[in-house]
């Protein structure tokens, strides 16, 4: 689990007589992979729990046959990958997988990258010894993106495993196949493991876990990615292209701030139209899991843009008279640096409400903690943490990477979690048994942080005032509770036969009143918890926990008390052993926050870059001058993991770029990527040329993309934090600025495989109450939206989408994510 290789935690093992080093406690399979030794395996997924469905990873360790995916390495272990018996088992297993598997490789979408094909050939299966009557298995569409062909399914359960252990939706599960029983004769004649595996295989198939024929999930498509055969394919991709025809372009997902590593896969659109088209997005699923936006929102390119000289000249003029440039976080580091250069040389204001609040928050945090950036990232959390806390983010919608980490810790690290958010989410509590959800009132985020201080802080380190303040919430009261007690009562009963009286003892239940002292924690109650039960529950959660992490979300940046919150977080980092990760609001918000010097308001003539403005530069193709979209340009992103990662152009672009404008306005190097080494080193960037940035993962799962930002850390005194006002809690009708999962910006909206609508999302009960369409009135204006029910939401707060820049949702909400509104049926 621990990813740090030190001398102490390494053990020596021998695989096929060759000595290797492996991290103690690692599975044999992972140790072999890290050392580049090949052990065949189908059902195992690196960051998920072993399923033992395929049994093909059978190896011999110290003379005993074990499964490499769930046996751990020990000092001095001698492992043999192939013995005659194991080879026989493996071959039999592959033969079993091939029983009744349709011979339609010719049309199958997976052909060429199919693990069944590969292992069948690898193990030299050239004849079949087993047979069983087939069952009728019909093709199903599970959702708007998932296409399942059970005929091709080998029930390795990778899809269900990743959905449960990584994604957290647990939307699919094994179901009954209704196949015939295996001929008894095989039990004697065939290898043991192969028979056991066949027995299991013959009994199951995969189906949505909610009992219907439709999955109720976030449509992330990770099940498609991990499917070793052609059973799970994106509906849009079925029979569209062979794997080998597609050109893979390494890139970064342009939507969430996780900066997921993706590959755009392109080929010419058709015989007549030879323009390149992105057919799908794939990922290195052993090391990174994508969300639905990263996987399905790929066709947002600005098509057929040409060099329109008139528009270009108009743009130059617009920039010359511009008072403000308004933009959002869908922008590369290089472009952000260009805008910053414009500010420095031409004095324009840079207006970016999406990032400005985050930037301020980051500055407060830096001042309070002395650290330039937060201390951990989601990968480290998944590898190490066993206790996670999430504050201020709608985990399911805001940050898929954090959601996966939160879930993965529960499933794989026997973890526990605390979830603080005003909107109840039934999915979060389903991640594990040791999760406490606090659905507090909006505005009480500080109380949550004080509670964390109370629960985790080293009392010695805490400043006296804070200690006293926290203690002021604690009360103890005596309470009379009723308890049921069993009592033995003796009674004289007349024996009917003899007529004599006998003594009989009887057990009687009795209710007794008892006085006990109850410790109450006002913070817990204030946050909507039950402090009487919480203390015990928390003790249980804390058992055997060693590594603590906290995820900080957007609610805290868009908060009136953001400065105090940033200080509280710095205080938490200083006085507890909790590592912190913050979710930059969207895409490249961190890059913008580090590179640009943003202003609080827009004045004068405004040039909008993918945003509203008097002159609009747009990669959406609807502005005054075309710009390349994220899949048409190269550049770098700064991700939540504090990494600067390169992305490449998947599709051609023939129009003007921002760099062309820069050349005319203030002078610029030849290419956009010539700006890469100029990124500000005082903010942690390095002077590395774009073409020298690596991309990929090594076999032991280490990320090798771009470079990590240099983090500076200076000694800082403990920040002085303010008390919070309970009166800050919002009451009444509340709207929350929050996008549905898979929607982040206009680009996800443009993509044809993203179906989540722009509207107001509410819990089922609330949606029923609101009707179909409502007008939401803010203090600065109003908007009419469709009401969409979200089964997983709880409570009365509604989520208002903000992904359409033109709708101006940020302006309506102002500096907060929560607003008191009036909702009227239309």
């Amino acid at each position: 689990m621990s990813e740090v290789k030190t001398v102490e935690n390494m053990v020596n093992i021998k695989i096929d007589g060759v000595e290797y080093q492996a991290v103690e406690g690692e599975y044999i399979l992972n140790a072999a992979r890290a050392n580049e030794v090949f052990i065949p395996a189908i059902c195992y997924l690196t960051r998920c729990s072993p399923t033992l469905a395929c049994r093909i990873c059978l190896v011999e360790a110290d003379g005993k046959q074990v499964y490499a995916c769930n046996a751990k390495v020990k000092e001095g272990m001698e492992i043999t990958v192939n013995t005659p018996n194991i080879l026989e088992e493996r071959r039999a297993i592959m033969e079993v997988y091939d029983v009744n598997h349709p011979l339609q490789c010719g049309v199958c979408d997976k052909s060429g990258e199919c693990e069944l094909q590969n292992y069948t050939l690898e193990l030299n299966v050239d004849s079949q010894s087993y047979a069983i009557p087939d069952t009728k298995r019909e093709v199903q569409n599970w959702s708007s993106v998932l296409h399942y062909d059970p005929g091709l399914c080998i029930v390795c359960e990778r899809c269900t495993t990743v959905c449960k252990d990584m994604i957290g939706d647990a939307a699919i599960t094994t179901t009954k196949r209704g196949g015939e029983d295996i001929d008894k004769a095989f039990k004697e004649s065939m290898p043991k493991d192969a028979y056991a595996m066949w027995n299991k295989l013959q009994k199951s198939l995969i189906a949505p876990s909610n009992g219907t024929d439709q999955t109720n999930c976030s449509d992330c498509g990770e099940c498609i990615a991990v499917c070793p055969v052609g059973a799970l394919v994106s509906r849009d991709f079925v029979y569209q292209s062979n794997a080998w025809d597609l050109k893979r372009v390494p890139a970064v997902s342009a939507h969430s701030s996780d900066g997921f590593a993706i590959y755009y896969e392109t080929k010419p659109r058709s015989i007549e139209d030879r323009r390149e088209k992105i057919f799908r997005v794939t990922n290195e699923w052993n090391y990174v899991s994508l969300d639905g936006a990263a996987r399905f929102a790929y066709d947002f390119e600005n098509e057929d843009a040409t060099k329109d000289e008139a528009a270009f000249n108009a743009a130059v003029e617009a920039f010359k008279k511009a008072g403000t440039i308004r933009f959002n976080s869908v922008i590369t580091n290089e472009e952000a640096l260009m805008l910053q250069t414009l500010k420095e040389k031409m004095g324009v204001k840079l207006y970016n409400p999406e990032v400005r609040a985050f930037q301020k928050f980051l500055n407060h945090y830096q001042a309070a903690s002395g650290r330039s950036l937060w201390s951990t990232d989601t990968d480290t959390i998944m590898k190490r943490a066993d206790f996670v806390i999430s504050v201020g983010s709608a985990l399911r919608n805001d940050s898929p990477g954090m959601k996966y980490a939160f879930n993965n810790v529960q499933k794989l690290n026997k973890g526990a979690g605390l979830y603080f958010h005003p909107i109840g989410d039934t999915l979060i509590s389903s991640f594990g048994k040791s999760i406490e959800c606090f659905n507090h009132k909006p505005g009480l985020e500080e109380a949550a942080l004080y509670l964390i201080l109370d629960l985790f802080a080293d009392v010695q380190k805490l400043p006296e005032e804070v200690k006293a303040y926290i203690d002021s919430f604690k009360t103890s009261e005596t309470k009379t509770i009723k308890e049921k007690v069993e009592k033995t009562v003796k009674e004289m009963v007349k024996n009917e036969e003899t007529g004599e009286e006998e003594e009989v003892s009887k057990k009687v239940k009795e209710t007794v009143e008892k006085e006990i002292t109850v410790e109450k924690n006002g913070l817990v109650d204030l946050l909507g918890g039950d402090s009487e039960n919480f203390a015990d529950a928390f003790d249980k959660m804390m058992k055997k926990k060693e590594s603590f992490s906290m995820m900080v979300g957007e609610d805290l940046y868009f908060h009136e008390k953001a400065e105090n919150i940033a200080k509280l977080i710095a205080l938490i980092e200083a006085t507890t052993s909790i590592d912190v990760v913050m979710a930059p609001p969207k895409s490249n918000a961190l890059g913008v926050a580090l590179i640009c010097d943003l202003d609080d308001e827009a004045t004068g003539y405004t040039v909008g870059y993918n945003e509203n403005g008097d002159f609009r530069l747009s990669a959406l193709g609807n502005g005054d001058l075309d710009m390349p979209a994220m899949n048409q340009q190269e550049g770098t992103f700064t991700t939540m993991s504090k990494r600067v990662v390169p992305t490449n152009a998947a599709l051609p672009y023939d129009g003007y770029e921002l760099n062309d404008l820069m050349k005319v306005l203030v002078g610029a190097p030849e290419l956009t990527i010539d700006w890469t080494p100029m990124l500000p080193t005082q903010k942690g960037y390095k002077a590395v040329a774009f073409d020298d940035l690596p991309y990929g993962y090594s076999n032991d799962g280490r990320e090798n993309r771009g470079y990590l930002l240099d983090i500076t850390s200076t000694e800082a005194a403990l920040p002085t934090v303010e008390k919070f006002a309970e009166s800050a809690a919002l009451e009444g009708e509340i709207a929350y600025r929050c996008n549905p999962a898979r929607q982040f910006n206009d680009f996800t909206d443009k993509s044809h495989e993203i179906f989540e609508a722009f509207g107001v999302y509410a819990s089922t009960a609330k949606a029923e109450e609101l009707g179909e369409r409502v007008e939401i009135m803010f203090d600065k204006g109003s908007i009419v939206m469709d009401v969409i029910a979200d089964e997983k939401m709880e409570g009365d707060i509604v989520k208002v989408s903000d992904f359409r820049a033109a709708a101006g949702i940020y302006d309506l909400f102002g500096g907060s994510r929560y607003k008191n509104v009036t909702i009227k049926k239309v």
Partner: protein
Amino acid sequence: MGLEQFKNRNVGTQEYRVLDLQESPKTPMAKFAQVAKRTFKGELFVGLGVTVREMFNALFRGQMHTVKYPLEKLPISPRYRAIHEMLRLLESGHYRCIGCGLCEKICISNCISMDTRYDENQRKEVSEYTINFGRCIFCGYCAEVCPELAIVHGPRYETASEQRASFSLFEDMLTPIDKLSLQQEYDGFGAVSPNADENIKKTPLAY
């Protein structure tokens, strides 16, 4: 004609007959006499007679020895690789191509291209298929790799045309549905070997 005589390359032991050549005349007079003798001997009419006889046989006795190209063509070896044909299934008449893309992949001059889609019957449909004959080198790899014997080389060797593209669409290469009964099974490049049955391992069936 047998090939035995060509196969025997041991020249030295064969029996040769020396031609009965007379000595060449030496004097001008003798040379003139030889020319005059050969000219007026009447051998010209012997040859003419043979021609007239063969013409008579060909025209009136049905013993024609030449082919009336281009009205008639000689049958060509199945291994000849000319313009491609797309065959149909004999039973259903549906085209054989399953859209696997192997021909597209193996093509060394990159001249095959196809579009496929998921059709209403949940099958892979070849929505478009084309071969750029301007680039095709008729190597035969596509026919060899085709798992369905769908793309084969036909005997149509005349490739002169104003536009080579006019050969190249799927419909042009596909056996016309009304000529399905005339479709010949292909036994050229890539066809199943005559002893294929012997090499197949049988898969047990549980029915």
